[in-house]
């Protein structure tokens, strides 16, 4: 039944977008983290989406969900601030903060929440269509 597959597809979209929101939340929470004793501060993370063909679906890939293939780390160097009195300062007096860009993260968050809403609406529409399909021949 093709309409039931919509729940799988939209569900995969919702879960992928919520994982993206999770990563954004983690990045924002660590925006001001300083380097630990090992000298490396928190690195911003990004989810990478990939098309996931529905299991058992038609071979030509007419129905395609989405999944998070990897979570990649931003390898750019962290922000360095000269603050010799900071307990986390290195021998030169620099403190290394995480490389999170709060502006990018906020934009990412808005985009993720819009996509989440779109997928939820797809599910609601499919649900009401299915309920009406069940009532064929009644009334």
């Amino acid at each position, binding site marked *: 039944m*093709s*309409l039931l597959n919509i729940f799988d597809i939209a569900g995969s979209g919702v879960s992928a977008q919520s994982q993206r929101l999770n990563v954004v939340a983690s990045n924002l929470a660590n925006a001001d983290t300083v380097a630990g004793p090992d000298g490396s501060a928190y690195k911003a993370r990004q989810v990478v989406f990939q*098309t996931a063909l529905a299991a058992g679906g038609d071979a030509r890939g007419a129905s395609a*969900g989405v999944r998070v293939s990897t979570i990649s780390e931003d390898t750019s160097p962290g922000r360095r601030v000269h603050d010799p009195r900071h307990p986390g300062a290195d021998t030169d007096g620099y403190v290394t903060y995480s490389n999170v860009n709060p502006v990018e993260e906020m934009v990412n968050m808005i985009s993720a929440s819009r996509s989440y809403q779109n997928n939820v609406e*797809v599910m609601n529409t499919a649900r009401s269509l299915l309920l009406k399909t069940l009532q064929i021949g009644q009334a």
Partner: protein
Amino acid sequence: MIARLTESFDFHSQALTLRGQRQRLIAGNIANADTPGFQARDFDFALALRTATGGAGPGLAIASGVMTPGGRSAPVLRYAVPSQTNLDSNTVDMDRERAAFADNAVKYESTLRFINGSVRTMLDAMKSHQG
């Protein structure tokens, strides 16, 4: 008489199946709105319905449909032409997909109403002798 009524059932059930397939396809496009490199797809509903109900010539049916194991011909998927280029080469146009999704949902419902109407007509025809 009954044959003519069930013929119309056949037609509407094919239309309903295709509407369901299109709804699923658009749901897939919406789910992949942020996937890098994803190409949005859709199919020509009129052509798919003509092929499925045998309204088209046999040559056209072979050229435009692929037979699935279930015996039903599956519509040919076409790739959307992006109206704006995207840096990650994703061609999902969210406005178009949302509009197509809403449009398809309404047409799915209207097909359901046609089927319900046919059912009611047939039931009325059966009842008229009793009254």
